[in-house]
């Protein structure tokens, strides 16, 4: 029922009768022969539901385009995708993650979208060049970025107020951050108030490296980009000290926090003050606590290099083996740029990359306060953003694993920060040199 009304709206928007709408909307494929596009994405229940509605809506306005949809959970999504790719049956349109896009691109599994950008099929005029280029690998546009993510710290204002601490601003530093947490521990009696896993992946460390004016990876992706291991050792030492003074949960405690899920995490329930996440954090937990706010991560005390960067949330890629690349690109264009599509998506996948869509959504008045904050954050943080790093090297998930291991060995007291930093360099360089 729901989508039949949406279908009417779209027919009105294109001011044509239902039968004629397709050929008007799109000359290249509208009168064309029937095309079936295979599409796959990961997500949870609500994403599957509205994406299916989107596909139905698109078929209504483009009667020759049918979809074979394979929605999936995150678990196993990439196992399946690589198996399909290995046998030459990758779906036409694939929701792609930053972690794996380089691997797929370098093995020529995904199509170059540049021709479609050049001929206007894929309109990127309202997408910032920085974020658009995160999909560019070896000169090819391996994926159309759908959403923008920015590293963010979430915080619970009630906890800060209780301890008499001022709210953090985008100018705060790591020293402020540490002293705030100390105050919270003393005044409000909350231990582990910074509910952060500094080893969850390398994003926070990457931020740390960048704000000290260095790069995590070298330009050829064959080794680490920073020269002095002190940078890594300092990072690990800072967190180790915070753990020892019960300001940050140790890995054991954090494992327990993770089982609670995002929605019942300690920051949401008022048992901690800070969490490291992304700019959609407040939106995600709004159902459980609508007071949560986000702020940019702390600045370095001794350097004013810009640490933040625009991170692609997810991509749509088109299979190199697809026989309907053009039609696939048309659909992606509609997904990114059309207001009717985004009225259904409602930023569930993250902050849309198109500035026009963001404006449209803010002005539509349908957004929650958290969603407005999330968009606002992108606008403001852009000032604090440095150069967008090139796409992650192949083997990024192994780098994350090595980082977690060496870091954990420090937190478990089995290695000094210096030893761990050296070991991280040794293992990572060996691996990167082999696979890149």
């Amino acid at each position, binding site marked *: 029922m729901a989508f039949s009304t949406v279908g009417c709206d779209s027919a009105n928007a294109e001011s044509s009768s239902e039968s004629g709408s397709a050929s008007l909307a799109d000359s290249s494929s509208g009168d064309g022969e029937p095309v079936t596009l*295979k599409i*796959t994405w*990961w*997500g*949870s*229940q*609500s*994403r*599957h*539901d509205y*994406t*299916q509605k989107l596909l139905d809506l698109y078929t209504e306005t483009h009667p020759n385009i049918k979809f*074979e*949809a*394979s*929605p*999936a*959970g*995150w*678990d*196993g999504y990439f*196992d*399946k995708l690589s*198996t*399909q790719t*290995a*046998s030459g*049956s990758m*779906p036409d349109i694939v929701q792609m993650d930053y972690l794996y896009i380089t691997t797929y691109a370098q093995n020529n599994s995904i199509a170059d979208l540049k021709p479609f950008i050049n001929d206007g099929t894929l309109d990127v005029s309202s997408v910032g060049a920085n974020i658009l280029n995160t999909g560019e690998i070896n000169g090819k546009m391996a994926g159309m970025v759908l959403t923008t993510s920015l590293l963010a710290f979430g915080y619970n204002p009630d906890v800060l107020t209780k301890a008499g601490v001022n709210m953090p601003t985008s100018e705060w530093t790591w020293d402020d951050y540490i002293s705030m947490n100390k105050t919270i521990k003393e005044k409000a009696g909350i231990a582990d108030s910074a509910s952060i896993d500094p080893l969850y992946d390398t994003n926070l460390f990457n931020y740390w490296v960048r704000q000290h004016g260095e790069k995590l990876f070298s330009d050829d992706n064959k080794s680490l980009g920073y020269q002095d291991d002190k940078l890594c050792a300092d990072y690990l030492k800072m967190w180790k000290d915070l753990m020892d003074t019960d300001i940050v949960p140790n890995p054991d405690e954090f494992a327990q926090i993770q*089982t*609670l*899920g*995002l*929605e*019942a995490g300690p920051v949401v*329930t008022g048992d901690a003050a800070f969490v490291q996440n992304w700019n959609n954090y407040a939106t*995600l937990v709004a*159902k*459980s606590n609508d007071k949560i706010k986000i702020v940019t991560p702390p600045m370095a005390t001794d350097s004013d290099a810009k640490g933040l960067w625009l991170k692609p949330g997810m991509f749509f890629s088109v299979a190199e083996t697809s026989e309907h690349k053009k039609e696939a690109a048309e659909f992606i264009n509609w997904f990114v740029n059309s207001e009717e599509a985004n009225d259904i998506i409602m930023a*569930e996948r993250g902050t849309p990359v198109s500035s026009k869509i963001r404006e449209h959504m803010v002005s539509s008045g349908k957004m929650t306060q958290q969603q407005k904050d999330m968009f606002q954050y992108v606008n403001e943080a852009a000032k604090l953003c440095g150069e967008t790093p090139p796409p992650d090297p192949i083997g990024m998930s192994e780098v994350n694993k090595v980082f977690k291991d060496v870091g954990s060995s420090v937190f478990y007291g089995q290695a000094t920060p210096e030893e761990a930093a050296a070991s991280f360099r040794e293992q990572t360089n060996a691996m990167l040199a082999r696979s890149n």
Partner: protein
Amino acid sequence: MGIKKEKRLRSILFHVGACILGFIMIYPLLWLVASSFKSNETMFTNTYSLIPTEWDIIENYSSGLKGVGGVTFLTFFLNSLIVTFVGTVTCVMSSLFAAYALSRIRFRFSGFWFGCVMVTMMIPPQVMVVPQYIILKKMKLIDTVASLVLPWGFGTAFFIFLMIQFFKGIPKELDEAAQIDGCGKIGILFRILVPIVKPAIVTSSIFAFYWIWQDFFQPLIFMNTTSKFTIPLALNMYLDPNSYNNYGGLFAMSVISLLPVIIFFIIFQKQLVEGIATEGLKG
């Protein structure tokens, strides 16, 4: 009198012990059922408690039953039932035949084939799935019910080996006697042996039912169309660590999905219940 008292005491001790152990064994199940009654917001706030602080039964079960992407949970449930039923029957039958051949019939290379049966159990399925996918694709079987049943329908090493062990426990003289009475090989199997190895067949059926019911990895890779998905694939679609998850709906459907397995077990385990076997061998 004393002996009777001691017997009663023993019996009480047995039941107390059995109940305590039983509670430990089913605690996660109780937790799952209780969680399926809890609201999403309070799900993980008071995790130990089996009594929900905020009840949300209707919301959980109705949102779960709604299914995914326009396909209701009932569809997944029926798919699972069909696949599991066909899979269990064919799997147990094929295994029974193979076990009978390998243990009671002397034919060329039977020892070699038994070795092959054993080796199939040893290799991790994770490295088999890509070649299997390629073969199924060539046979145009990807995204079909057949691809869900095929890995089971030809019999599996576990059951073949299990039944062989049971067959070996039966004196060969029985076969020979039956043969003299004019029984063919197939007659021997069904008239003489099957009644004796019934416990093995029941056990195999219980395992097969559960394994096929909960099979996840291969169906995940082989199936594409949502409306053909089985329950484990459907439940996996409820989850994405990076977004808001409907745990209530997930747990509610997990409870429903466990029911057939438990019911199947309760019915079939009766075959194993009636104390020590009395029929056994009558030879």
